[in-house]
């Protein structure tokens, strides 16, 4: 079965750059780009939703079909 990739939406207006999503991602998908979090390696994402769950600022949405 082919792996479907999710869409990781980062709302920069809400992001406060706390690094929580980057540090707690088990697959190292995210990185800090300047002040905000951004997606580095979407291919590695396993849709565990940890970033969405832990973001205190409602800034990340992992959209899976």
């Amino acid at each position, binding site marked *: 079965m082919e792996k479907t990739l999710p869409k990781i*939406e980062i709302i920069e*207006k*809400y992001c*406060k*750059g*706390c*690094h*929580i999503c980057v*540090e*707690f991602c088990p697959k190292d998908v995210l990185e800090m780009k300047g002040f905000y979090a951004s997606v580095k390696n979407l291919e590695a994402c396993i849709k565990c*939703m940890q970033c*969405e*769950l*832990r*973001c*205190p*600022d*409602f*800034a990340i*949405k*992992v*959209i*899976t079909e």
Partner: protein
Amino acid sequence: MAFDYDKWIRPGKLPHIWCPGCGHGIVMKGLIRAMDTLQLKKEETAVVSGIGCASRLPGYIDCCTLHTAHGRAAAFATGVKMARPEMNVILVGGDGDGTAIGGNHFIHACRRNIDMTYIIMNNYIYGMTGGQFSPCTPTGHKASTTPYGNPDPGFDIAKLAIGAGATFVARGTAFHANQIDKLIVEAIQHKGFSVVEILDDCPTTYGRRNKFKSVIEMMNRLKEVAVPVKAAEKMTAEQLQGKVLTGVLYKDETKPEYIVEYAKVIERAQAVKK
């Protein structure tokens, strides 16, 4: 699929005022997920708070909300519940608001066992007012008013609530984000006064003064100190030194609930009149 938090948030209120890395946002997400799981009606849910960082929470949630005087959330919420017993009343607040300034209201709400849920976000400090030590600041830790270390021993909110007579007491942490909504769901479903203490992090006023280098270090500390109740049963007292139990700590379904008891008082009083 991504959880839709937006339907529970007042339009245009985000981003919130909490500092980068503050766990209050994680607790708020947990509360929203819990309210959504229980499919609470917005018009039948009241979120009541006092003053403080954590008490800013009702401002963002789209349901009936009440932002009251410092420490008096329990008093106002009791009024709401007495007037409208069908409402789901949820109190939110911090450790300073709940156990110091509102300590008296808190213990007496526990004693009455009125059907409400109190979510206390314990970040060990008064964050909003500039980092003064709170009753939950651990011994030796620094705050803006105790620059050489706090001499007082800290409160154990869960034990205080159990001692005061609350019938459901649970504890979670901001690190264990998945557990928060489950604890809150159980607390709201419980008939009686439920207390959910969530250990939180305050990187700005607490972490900075106590040599926590980052938010991540504070989160990892929560991970290290938390021990689930079931795991703790197999551990020795030595191993439990410095650890904090998490999960449902106490549950008593036999104690009479206040609204029910008060209805009986009304009935008795009206019988006398006739």
